[in-house]
């Protein structure tokens, strides 16, 4: 696979690892947060930490669209499937997210809900065309990467005059979440996060560009490197962050020059702002209510807004009390600090948000890194 395999080359990794090891200063720790679950997954799956010096630590951030979906949002989707009898189309990732009453979309499906996995929102449009007698709702989750396709689909449904298609919009915004981690009330209660720099998600920046991160770099004096999702990209970004820290810089650097520009994809941006507008506030799992951190469908496309169409009222539901996701998403705690990690909370029966997707901190650790805990116990 061109432009994939080259960025997974073990030999080059060795060189980069050596370079990082050579450049880190022994007298300090480097705590970097990879914001995005895609990075978390890549780090775990390729074993990147094994190639890092012990004083470079990666903190898994909240950038997994599955992990951050609060219970109340899943409840709405389940309600649509079980009570409003719609065909609910969703990316596969959402199926096991725990909801109220011990349910999940997978369990709701087992109870008879017509819940279908789709690979793309266009498949949901097709299902709507094929079942004119049924309401079809697309459960739209995701960050800035996944939002433009939803915008295209809504515009297409409008153009076609598709009467039975709507969207349960749960699209969220990366920069707002990062800001929340740095300065929210809750963050202060949990203790300040000792983050020395951020790895920014390249895919988000293919759309929004690298520019929106300039704020953090300047305001919070945090270095940011926008990096691709292959393990070499991550290593390279770490090297770039180490250098910024060592040199006392706090800039936005772009490792993913092969597809990220400062301004991003303006066509996609325009489509998104045509269809969506900012929500005043949105609840995130683990982070709580975060102002202006999500999108909703504009008035002009109200017909395609499942929340209006089915008169859905969002009901916040508290997370499992034992769940430490909030602290974990801020890097204050590690998955193993959670009392129910690996016993009550497992990927088969996730209790908290981080255990759901393989991009979640707890799940990634459970699936790929559990052996390390055993070694420290032994």
């Amino acid at each position, binding site marked *: 696979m061109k432009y994939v395999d080259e960025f997974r080359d073990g*030999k080059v990794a060795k*060189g980069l690892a050596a*370079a990082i090891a050579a450049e880190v200063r022994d007298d300090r720790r480097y705590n970097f947060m990879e914001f995005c679950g895609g990075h978390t997954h890549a780090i775990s799956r390729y074993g990147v930490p094994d190639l890092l010096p012990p004083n470079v630590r990666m903190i898994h951030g909240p950038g997994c669209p599955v992990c951050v979906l609060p219970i109340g949002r899943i409840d709405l989707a389940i309600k649509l499937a079980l009570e409003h009898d719609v065909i609910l189309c969703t*990316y596969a*990732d959402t199926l096991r997210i725990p909801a109220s009453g011990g349910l999940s979309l997978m369990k709701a499906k087992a109870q008879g809900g017509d819940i279908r996995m789709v690979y793309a*929102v266009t498949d949901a449009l097709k299902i709507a065309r094929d079942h004119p007698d049924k309401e079809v709702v697309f459960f739209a989750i*995701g960050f800035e990467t*996944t939002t*433009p396709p939803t915008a295209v689909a809504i515009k297409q449904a409008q153009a076609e005059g598709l009467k039975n298609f709507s969207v349960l919009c749960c699209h969220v915004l990366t920069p707002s979440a990062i800001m929340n981690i740095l300065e929210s009330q809750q963050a202060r209660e949990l203790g300040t996060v000792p983050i020395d720099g951020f790895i920014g998600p390249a895919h988000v920046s293919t759309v929004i560009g690298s520019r929106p991160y300039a704020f953090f770099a300047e305001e919070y004096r945090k270095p940011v490197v926008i990096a691709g999702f292959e393990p070499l990209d991550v290593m390279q970004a770490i090297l770039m962050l180490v250098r910024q820290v060592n040199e006392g810089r706090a800039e936005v650097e772009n490792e993913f020059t092969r597809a990220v520009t400062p301004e991003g994809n303006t066509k996609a941006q325009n489509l998104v702002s045509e269809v969506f507008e900012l929500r005043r506030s949105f609840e995130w799992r683990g982070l709580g209510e975060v102002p202006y951190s999500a999108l909703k469908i504009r008035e002009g496309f109200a017909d395609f807004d499942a929340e209006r169409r089915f008169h859905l009222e969002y009901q916040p539901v508290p997370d499992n009390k034992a769940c430490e996701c909030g602290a974990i998403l801020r890097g204050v705690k590690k998955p193993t600090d959670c009392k129910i990690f690996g016993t009550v909370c497992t990927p088969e029966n996730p209790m908290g948000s981080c255990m759901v997707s393989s991009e979640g901190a707890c799940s990634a650790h459970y699936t790929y890194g559990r052996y390390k805990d055993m070694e420290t116990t032994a």
Partner: protein
Amino acid sequence: MCLAIPARVVEIAEKDQAIVDLGGVRKDVSLALVEDVQVGDYVIVHVGYALTRLDPEEAEKTLALMAEAGLTPEAISITTPPFPHGRESMH
């Protein structure tokens, strides 16, 4: 979920539809979010949509940079052991 993969455009049909190839596997994608994509271009594909084009020159540059990093004298002197805590090493 955050899966996004570079793939080569091998066919462009009407209505912003294209077929991309990744290592011999072909898949429909929408080009609705990108402009002026040509057959032969690499695009980054996410949930069935091309998000952007991939710039081959920049990719080469990045790869060169990565390779170079490992060639510094300090880097060469250090190696990482496989299975540092394993009880049997691999052969």
